[in-house]
């Protein structure tokens, strides 16, 4: 685990009040169950929401969360502070596992359709409105506001890529956009989000 001051350290978004995530993770590294439970309590529900948003199967989502936190318990030293906050590391781990699950399922479905002599079925693109909110904690409201202020074409790329788990080429295929356009929109969106969240979260 690399914790401490680093050159070019990334910005940090606000953490829940109380013990810092990084301190909790250090204690997890020493086998402190209470620290693990506290970290789990802070992020398990968000991680679960993210996994479920992607895989849309309750049991699979739960397994992804469990595996991700098991990996945290077993290997907290994989966290590198120079690469971002503990929360981002956790969410990245969950997102990566969930996207893997989505793409495995897609590949299996393709193979099944090919074996059955069917063409690729029409895949519905559920573009849920993740922006709707009434009473939200500050950070959730902040992130939703930042998403809401993206130009629509950029928000669509973020939504499909991050929240639906589609790859850049899958988005290009489904939207009919050139691949280069998808990639540049993703980058522009991330820059806008950074400008918005970087200011508002400190």
């Amino acid at each position, binding site marked *: 685990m690399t914790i401490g001051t680093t050159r070019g350290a990334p910005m940090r978004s606000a953490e829940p009040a109380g013990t810092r995530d990084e301190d909790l993770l250090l204690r997890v590294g020493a086998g402190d169950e209470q620290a693990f439970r506290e970290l789990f309590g802070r992020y398990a529900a968000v991680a679960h929401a993210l996994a479920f948003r992607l895989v849309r199967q309750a049991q699979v989502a739960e397994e992804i969360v469990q595996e991700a936190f098991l990996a945290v318990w077993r290997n907290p030293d994989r966290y590198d502070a120079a690469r*971002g906050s503990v929360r981002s590391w956790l969410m990245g781990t969950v997102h990566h596992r969930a996207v893997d699950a989505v793409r495995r399922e897609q590949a299996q479905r393709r193979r099944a359709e090919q074996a059955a002599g069917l063409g690729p079925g029409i895949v519905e693109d559920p573009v849920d409105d993740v922006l709707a909110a009434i009473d939200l904690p500050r950070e959730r409201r902040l992130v939703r506001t930042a998403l809401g202020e993206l130009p629509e074409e950029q928000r669509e790329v973020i939504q499909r890529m991050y929240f639906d788990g589609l790859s850049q080429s899958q988005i290009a295929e489904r939207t009919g956009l050139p691949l280069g356009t998808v990639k540049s929109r993703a980058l522009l969106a991330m820059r806008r989000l950074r400008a918005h969240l970087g200011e508002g979260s400190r």
Partner: protein
Amino acid sequence: MIRDHALIDELLAIRALDGLDEGDAEQLQRELAAHGECDECRRLEAQHAEIAGMLALALDPRPVREDMADRIIAEAQAPGGATSPAAPDELTGRRGARLGPWQAAFGVAAAVALVLAFVLATRPEAGPPIPGGVIVPFEGAGPGEVALAYTPGEPGALVWATGLPDPGAGKVYELWMFENGDPIRAACLAPSGGAVAASLDADLNSAELMAVTVESSECPDAPTTDPLYTATLDAQ
């Protein structure tokens, strides 16, 4: 020397969103390797990762079962699991030195050899079952063959090798997994008669690349020699 980071910036942004295609992922590894020790690359990577991680907060939290934390701790402490995060026998290791020229190997590794036959032929009768799903052959200039098997989405793997030359006095083979370009120790392997069959606890699901080097029998935390064998792990 002033380097252009435009391409790396774009690819890192998309990687943070888990949207990169395989070809671009390999291109990113090559670009990062070409930049070597690059503070700007690390800054961009951290920024994009931070923003991507924050996006999850847009979702309404979804409660988990109350006993999930208990079950995770129990599973970690079960026989065969890590008794504590710092267990010395834990096969996964610590982050080591930056990759540098190692990353160049990333684009080279491609699974072409059919080693399933040798895997099955060398599998001990009473050995652990091969995890289902994926068998990954290694490529390399050295003699012998190396492969591993694992189940996507699950921790654990089996590694097999035949025809390995003696690594030398006081030396062993060390298996590494790479996550985001960083080496993590997966296992130290001491061949017997040139053969190895070992069960790993390591979770390969976030790894992009596996590699084998010759190291001192102390099994260092970071590779000190060039890889002899490499294998790319594709997203399954």
